[in-house]
């Protein structure tokens, strides 16, 4: 009989193919139930996990979960598989692989070596049989370093994307949030706006605005206005100051197509930004956002569980040497991740799978008001991701994004994690904060200034005068 058979709980369980086995082995989440691919009982789920643990890693090379012929992401994964990098773990089962990852023999160097030999489905598979502490323990062994105007991913560092969104793209509202964030030591991963408009001229103005702020105060950071990659390419052609090229991506060709992108378009965007040579300490120019459930939401999941689809998105991402990849974990809503428990696990899985595959992972630790989640859940995920060595998180005034109507992490939250876990900003940015007199870290103690540095103070006075006080 084809497929996979497992005896568990006095019953004999059958899983039709690798895709079904992966889906049934996935810890419970609403999106897999919605897709009709979840295990029907807790016992079936553990039976699938047992069968998965016995599966040789090599099996993934022989059975594509989405056929090679019909999906360019499958082709990317298999064509770029590095057999020599895989050699170190090629004899292992998924269960052996988990044991090895957790062992002291498995070093940061080993993990770096094998990353190009790992398929995203292997990473997803092993994560399904790992507990949260396993995901944290292995993740924190891995450093994925990238650079543009500063350096991300160094040991003991955690950066933030300052997200100063405004529902009307008001430039002064954006500037107010930027100043607020900088004064709380946020913004080293980037200052990145989700614009309310898709008008090219308005987006061009926002790019110029952010560029002038970074230029005026010589801030060692990078900027991004998140719009479709075709718009960004057009803005580059118009001579606008583009640091990072943003795009939402997913793990199947059909889902990417629903986003209006293909692998060749992503390459085109990357080349356009590389040509600008705007990075000073490195030239990683891509910024990708992902999230479990996006393929299902586009009806493009091919019967695959949402976490395996998500891991495949990281295989797409790593092909373009991104500066940062952001899993926007709780944004998609309760039909994919129902509650705090599901969001927390998904955030840690995503971070682990991304890091294992060599992707500079960050996380938008977030939720919407119709999910069964709250600030306590975000604190839990933030603390666990901080302990995992996440490259960056979000920084939003008061955790409340007034443009996208969801809750993420605040500037204050980042300082909490930095204090409790001894994490520092990117080194270039930390020097700038220190030189500006905004924030100091001495002998592990973080202190924030009580007064504005002179140039900011003048800006606030000017704004006050301008606003007619």
């Amino acid at each position, binding site marked *: 009989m084809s497929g996979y058979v497992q005896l568990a709980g006095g019953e004999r369980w059958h899983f039709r193919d690798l895709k079904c086995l992966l889906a049934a082995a996935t810890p419970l989440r*609403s999106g897999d139930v*919605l897709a009709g691919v979840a295990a029907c009982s807790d016992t079936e789920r553990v039976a699938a996990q047992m069968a998965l643990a016995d599966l040789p890693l090599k099996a993934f090379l022989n059975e594509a979960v989405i056929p090679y012929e019909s999906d360019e992401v499958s082709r990317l994964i298999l064509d770029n598989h590095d057999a020599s990098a895989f050699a170190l773990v090629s004899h292992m089962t998924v269960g052996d692989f988990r044991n090895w990852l957790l062992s002291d023999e498995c070093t940061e160097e080993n993990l770096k070596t094998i990353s190009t030999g790992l398929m995203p489905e292997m990473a997803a598979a092993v994560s399904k049989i790992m507990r949260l502490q396993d995901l944290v323990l292995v993740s924190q062994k891995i450093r994925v370093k990238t650079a543009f105007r500063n350096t991300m991913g160094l040991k003991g560092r955690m950066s933030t994307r300052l997200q100063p*969104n*405004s*529902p*009307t793209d*008001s*430039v*002064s*509202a954006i*500037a*107010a*949030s*930027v*100043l*607020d964030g900088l*004064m709380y030591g946020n913004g080293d991963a980037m200052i990145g706006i989700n614009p309310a408009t898709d008008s090219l001229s308005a987006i061009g103005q926002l790019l110029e*605005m952010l560029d*002038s*702020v970074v*230029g*005026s*105060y010589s801030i060692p950071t990078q900027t991004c206005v998140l719009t479709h990659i075709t718009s960004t390419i057009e803005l580059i052609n118009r001579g606008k100051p583009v640091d990072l090229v943003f795009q939402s991506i997913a793990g199947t060709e059909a889902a990417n197509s629903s986003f209006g992108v293909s692998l060749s378009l992503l390459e085109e965007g990357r080349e356009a930004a590389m040509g600008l040579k705007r990075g000073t300490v490195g030239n990683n120019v891509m910024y990708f956002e992902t999230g479990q459930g996006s393929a299902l939401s586009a009806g493009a999941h091919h019967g695959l569980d949402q976490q395996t689809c998500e891991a495949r998105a990281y295989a797409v991402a790593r092909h373009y040497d991104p500066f940062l990849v952001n899993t926007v974990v709780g944004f998609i809503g*309760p*039909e994919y991740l*129902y509650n705090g428990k599901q969001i927390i696990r998904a955030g840690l899985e995503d971070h682990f799978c991304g890091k294992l595959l060599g992707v500079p992972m960050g996380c938008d630790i977030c939720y*919407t*008001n*119709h999910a069964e989640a*709250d*600030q306590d859940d975000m604190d839990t995920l933030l603390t666990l991701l901080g302990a995992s060595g996440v490259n960056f998180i979000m920084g939003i*005034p*008061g*955790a*409340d994004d*007034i443009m996208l*109507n*969801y*809750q993420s992490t*605040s500037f*204050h939250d980042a*300082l*909490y994690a930095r204090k409790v876990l001894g994490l520092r900003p990117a080194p270039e940015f930390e020097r700038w904060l220190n030189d500006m007199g905004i924030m100091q870290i001495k002998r592990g103690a973080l202190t*924030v200034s*009580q*007064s*504005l540095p*002179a*140039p*900011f*103070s*003048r*800006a*606030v006075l*000017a*704004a*006050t005068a*301008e606003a*007619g*006080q």
Partner: protein
Amino acid sequence: MNRDHRFLSGGVTSDPWDNLKRLTAARVALGRAGTSLPTSAHLEFQLAHAGARDAVHSTLDADRLADQIRAKGLSCFVGNSAAAGRAEYLQRPDLGRTLDEATIKSLSDWHQEEGAPKFDLSIVIADGLSARAVRDHSLPMLANLITLAEKESWSLSPVVIIRQGRVAIGDEIGSQLAARMVVLMIGERPGLSSPDSLGVYFTFEPKSGLRDDSRNCISNIRPEGLSHALASHKLAGLLRGANERRLSGVQLKDDSELVTVDSDIADIGNFLALADIREHYASES
């Protein structure tokens, strides 16, 4: 700047850029206790979240709303989607998009008994993600719609109120009642500062299975967003345009003059990069 005023009370440091609060509705200059949120800012956030959560889990008093609609001289049906309760509704959007069997039967029985009439317009009201928005804003919007229908001599089907409904359910109802156009009013996903936001969706020649690009949407209808009057004005423009051009969705543009949300927050531009500041900073460094 005077150092003392930064201490509001024991342990709380205020931010010396309080003035920027007038430039944005974002939660800036919250101050800090150590580097954490001060108690007042923390509890204000919790209150806003509680309001949004309560809106999501609020129950629509459909019978009361139906009585209020009948009092306007309209007939009214109350029905349910296929989602059994809030938890199922939140996890199974597919069920919220379809009617339950009892509702399908009562609508089709009524339609047959009446001799299968055709209507110009069906109005559907669904709780969506905020029953509170429906409670607060659906009746005034309905009154404006009735006035419009009278002016245009459009025939109106009975109003249908749906519990646990999603946007696409309007199309199924419009199709059941043989309506040429359907308008669906629905509670939108609450934001922290918008627990009561109503959305209005409109489809020409509704039928089950249409996609989002076949519909037009007017969003953010609430006192602090788009007023009932402005929203009704936009909707009237869309309905007249659709009626003339016999289509809805992406091909139908909103021709009403650009209506933006009234805002008492001025945009004074990028005060962080005013030339004199740049020069000042350049000379210092």
